[in-house]
């Protein structure tokens, strides 16, 4: 199921979402050996190393997860070394996720990481990191500056990942595109909180976190659908993809490719979910008489 997003050629439209593999380079390498994986987005890397928040950092809700990891990562310099050590052996494009707090950081990180990245995803949407993510991503001007700096530092495809927590997400996405983004990833997690009735306290040490998984799937579908009508660039769908139907739903809404995060949890050597989803999509294409996955993209729209 070959597919193109921005100028990245993917052997499958299924992409590993940022964050769920941690910072392990070798894990990225292993994952890339799964023929149903089309690309890997790295854990978001920041300018300085971050330990992330204290535990508890995740709550299991049954129909999704709430997380406030706090963007733990070794910092872009160390991470570059790690990624460089595996880059040569990678079988799929490596999309490096960066979480800059301003344009200057963005430029420096991208320049340094350019040699190991096939593309970048700019995370302006993490709902729980101070001075990062959503705190920059809800301001249209800051997003513009950051994306501009990224654009000026690389010729490689630039994706910008947006947040569902912002009323005017279309404006944010559009300003990213105006500043040079080649594609939009939608969505990051939805802000939420869990309180334990026995402990009588919020569970997450950061108090609130980001909701992912099944619970946010209809939100992702809605946002992808709306962005597809408003933007000219490809959209990468993300949010609550657990089976092939969830993936197809995002594609019909307008996603050219689909990212998978939460569904990876729990499963032993857990990338079977990619194989199952790819198999399901192929069967669906056959049953419905499509000759390529491209034909699905945006099909739910009237035009």
């Amino acid at each position, binding site marked *: 199921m070959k597919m193109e997003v921005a100028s990245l050629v993917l052997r499958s439209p299924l992409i590993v979402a940022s964050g769920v593999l941690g910072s392990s380079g070798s894990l990225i390498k292993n994952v890339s050996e799964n023929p149903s994986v089309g690309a890997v987005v790295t854990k978001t890397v920041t300018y300085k190393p971050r330990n992330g928040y204290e535990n508890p950092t995740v709550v*299991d809700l049954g129909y999704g997860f709430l997380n406030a990891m706090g963007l733990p990562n070794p910092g872009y310099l160390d991470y570059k070394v790690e990624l460089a050590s595996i880059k040569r052996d990678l079988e799929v494009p490596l999309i490096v996720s960066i979480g800059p707090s301003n344009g200057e950081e963005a430029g420096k990180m991208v320049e340094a990481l350019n040699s190991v990245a096939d593309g970048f995803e700019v995370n302006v949407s993490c709902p729980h990191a101070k001075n990062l993510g959503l705190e920059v991503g809800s301001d249209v001007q800051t997003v513009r500056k950051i994306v501009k700096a990224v654009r000026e530092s690389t010729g490689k495809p630039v994706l910008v990942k947006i947040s569902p927590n912002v009323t005017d997400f279309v404006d944010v996405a559009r300003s990213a595109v105006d500043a040079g983004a080649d594609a939009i990833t939608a969505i990051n997690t939805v802000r939420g909180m869990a309180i334990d009735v026995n402990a009588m306290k919020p569970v997450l040490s950061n108090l609130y976190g980001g909701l992912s998984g099944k619970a946010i799937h209809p939100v992702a579908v809605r946002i992808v659908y709306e962005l597809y009508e408003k933007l000219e660039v490809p959209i990468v769908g993300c949010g609550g993809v657990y089976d092939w139907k969830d993936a197809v739903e995002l594609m019909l809404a307008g996603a050219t490719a689909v990212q998978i995060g939460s569904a990876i949890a729990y499963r032993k050597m857990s990338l079977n979910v990619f194989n199952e989803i790819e198999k399901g999509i192929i069967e669906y294409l056959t049953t419905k008489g499509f000759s390529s996955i491209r034909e699905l993209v945006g099909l739910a729209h009237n035009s």
Partner: protein
Amino acid sequence: MRGSHYYHEANVVSNIRETIRVNTLVLRLNEGLNMAPGQFLMVWRPGEGEIPVTPSLIQGETLSLTIEKVGFTSNRLASLKPGEKVFLRGPLGNGFNLSLPGRYLLIGGGTGAASLTPAYLSLASKGVEALFLVGARDTENLVYISRLKELGVRFKVATDDGSEGFKGTLPEFFEELVSKDRFENVLTIGPEKMMVKIAEKCVDYGISCQVSLVRIVKCGLGLCGSCVLDPFGLRVCVDGPVFYGEKILGSDFGRFMRDEAGRRIEIVQ
């Protein structure tokens, strides 16, 4: 999980000092947890952190945790008083395979001696022959011994300085024992350098060896990648914490782990 919304509440019944660095908390829950030996729990104190612990006793609604004071959360937990509460998430992870045929040798270093106890009791209750080796630097650092006696565990002791039992390390003691006696299975929890040595010897002797690893566990659900064992991409929290030694020899097992920020760091112990 959700049933307990989101944690099981447990009351501290007693706090037993094991050594200068290790305490055992005896807890009482409202319900049994249906845990297998070798599985672990995330132990939460609101405002004071949450850490992974493999219980040292699982008996209906009574549970004990043997905790070494290494940092903020473990220090807080180790100093709880009767009546105080902890909140438990789990059981998590895979646990030991205790249905392999043959005799079992259990090898516990440090708090590992405590965490192996449920496996011993489970084997004993099924009538499987098992011997328990407990090791420490010296007598002062031996943990859980009096509890093992109480529980009727068949155990032998090794200390580096010979202040009690065999004089030498656990791998040395193990070597001596297997040269005389036949064991089909080894289970071990302890410092990784020690576990690597034992796992290597097991390969030599053709003994099945299960080791329980420690990594930085954050989500405990296989979601965040924090606990990964490179280069296999195994997640200690769901694929482990128990692994067959021969399967992970040559990996970062005993050599590297990742710190909270995901930096690869060397394992010293």
